[in-house]
């Protein structure tokens, strides 16, 4: 598999090599079909959530005569408990979910990478100290802790929510990354770098981290799925102030307004659930392709 993916290295002009780099990128991305579909769906969801609102405005007008109508041409996903268009809510409701998940995953991945590699690579008392703290935090059930904290600290901004989740979600990722650092440490090229006395930071940043990129990317994606789950859960419990429409808020409103108990309201409750499920599934599938793209051994033409 590796041999056929790797392009021959040649000395070309910058433009040509950039084009070749892009072609390798697309080929690696498309190599795993499930992963490629996942990647396309994630891109589609991001475009829909960030560019979509420019074209489709959030429907905020209450129309009492159009409550819970089933899909028509005018309302592709029907209407909600106040007669507002569901499709416009789906288009406008993804932005917050993706932003918070991205922020949380970024913070937890950075913490996990920094301390995971240090712990695995340096070892000794640093490793014992970091792992003791990690194990202890890992034992505390995350979601109840988050819910209790959310009740004490009033989460009035999405950024604050993202930061809080990021600060709690790193232990699982750290353990996985430490295991990778431990196994990479035994490899010959790290031994060689050590023999050359290249210094800890050089080895960690130039040798270890690039080779851990596939795992870091997977951790990041997992971090995003944790965060999507948690924010949907917190909103469902009513712990995050409901400001604008987003998918989690739609589920909560559907639940509170009893939309689950009518025959025609099924579109209202299903739309955000399916949106969240598709996003989660796409992120997880995407990692299969990203693992290949970020594997430095498979990217020869850079």
């Amino acid at each position, binding site marked *: 598999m590796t041999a056929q993916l790797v392009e021959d290295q040649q000395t070309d002009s910058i433009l040509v090599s950039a084009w070749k780099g892009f072609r390798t990128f697309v080929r690696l991305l498309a190599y795993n079909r499930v992963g490629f579909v996942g990647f396309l769906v994630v891109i589609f969801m991001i475009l829909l959530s960030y560019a979509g609102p420019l074209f489709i405005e959030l429907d905020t007008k209450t129309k009492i005569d159009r409550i819970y109508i089933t899909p028509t041409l005018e309302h592709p996903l029907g209407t909600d408990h106040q007669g507002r268009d569901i499709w416009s809510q789906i288009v406008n409701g993804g932005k917050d979910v993706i932003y918070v998940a991205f922020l949380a995953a970024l913070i937890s991945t950075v913490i996990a990478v920094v301390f995971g590699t240090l712990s695995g690579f340096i070892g000794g008392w640093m490793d014992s100290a970091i792992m003791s703290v990690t194990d202890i935090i890992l034992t505390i059930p995350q979601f109840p802790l988050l819910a209790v904290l959310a*009740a004490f600290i009033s989460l009035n901004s999405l950024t604050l929510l993202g930061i809080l989740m990021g600060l709690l979600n790193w232990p699982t990722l750290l353990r996985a990354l430490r295991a990778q650092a431990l196994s990479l440490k035994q490899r010959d090229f790290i031994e060689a770098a050590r023999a050359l006395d290249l210094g800890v930071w050089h080895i960690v940043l130039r040798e270890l981290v690039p080779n851990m990129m596939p795992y870091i990317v997977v951790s990041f994606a997992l971090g995003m799925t944790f965060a999507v789950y948690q924010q949907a859960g917190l909103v469902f*419990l009513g712990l995050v102030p409901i400001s604008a429409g987003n998918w989690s808020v739609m589920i909560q409103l559907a639940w509170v307004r009893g939309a689950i108990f009518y025959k025609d309201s099924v579109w209202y409750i299903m739309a955000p659930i399916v949106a969240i499920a598709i996003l989660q599934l796409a992120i997880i599938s995407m990692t299969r392709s990203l693992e290949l793209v970020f594997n430095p051994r498979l990217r020869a033409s850079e």
Partner: protein
Amino acid sequence: MATAADVSNVSTGRISSPLSILGAIWGSYFFRKFLRALATIFIVTTIIFFLVRLLPGNPIEIYVNQLVVTYGLPVHEAKDQAAALFAIDLEQPVILQYFSYLQNLARGNFGQSVLSPGTTVTEVILRFLPWTLFSVGLGLLISFTIGVLFGVIMAYRRDSYLDHGLTVLSSVISSVPDFLIGLLIVVWLGVQWKILPIAAMRGAYSSGMVPGLNLEFFLDAFFHGALPISTYVLTSVGFWMLSMKSNTISTLGEDYVTIAKARGLKEWRITTAYVGRNAILPLFTILTIRIGFVVGGSLLVEQIFEYGGIGRMLGQAINQRDYTLMQGIFLIITFSVIFANFFADVLYGWLDPRIKLQDN
């Protein structure tokens, strides 16, 4: 840790020296796991104490202010009332308050509910915790068993339709949050298709039932627990299946399996005693993570099915900002998870003696 090991090495000459006994205890796998559990309990209780007592705008301050401003109570009386509710003596220095708080916790005194005074938090916990332990425990047990069995089958029948079908199905289901699976069950099986009597399945048992050790009550408990348990099983079985499958595949490549085959052992014996036993071991380390995850999920899942467990009570306490109840339930949930983790660690050390040595 290193010093303790040195000490025990030095004193090997005199076997009965107290130092060597101390060293042996310190070096013991179970003792270290036990210490970790204690440390975790200590840290969690401390975090909660600081949140409740010391953070600016903490619930005790708010409660006292409320009593003074709205009911015109003198400050010391308001403080007395808060002290009784939260089981904390507010007149003492903070450090002493902290110790008496720990003492109270050790005695099982979690204070009283803010919103329904007269109800102790311990009463609420004793009433609702067993149902969560029952449903979450059974859910984990069922999904672990099914997952391990199917994982082995999938590994033996690699690339068959069964393998591909189960892989796709389990990755799809595991990517949907557990409480949304619960919501889907309510919406489709309960409301749209009317297959399940979801209204009758609420609570932990039917209202006329008297809890007791009889068949009728057991059946009723299973009837009410069926939906949360199915949700836990559905959402975590795929995880076990995929982990067990990959563990089994890597175990199948081990030399001792090849040798067992060469010795002409029965296929069934190789599968159970050689492959299965070794492949299942790493799952115990994952189990410790999954327990906390499923318990966390129960907070939402119980809300959806209106199951009478501690998770639903915690949700209500958080929603109504009943801080004493919230603090007590959160602590007891965390203690349960810590205890379950300790138990899983002990089980793992017993099943795989190598781990006790390796950890040193």
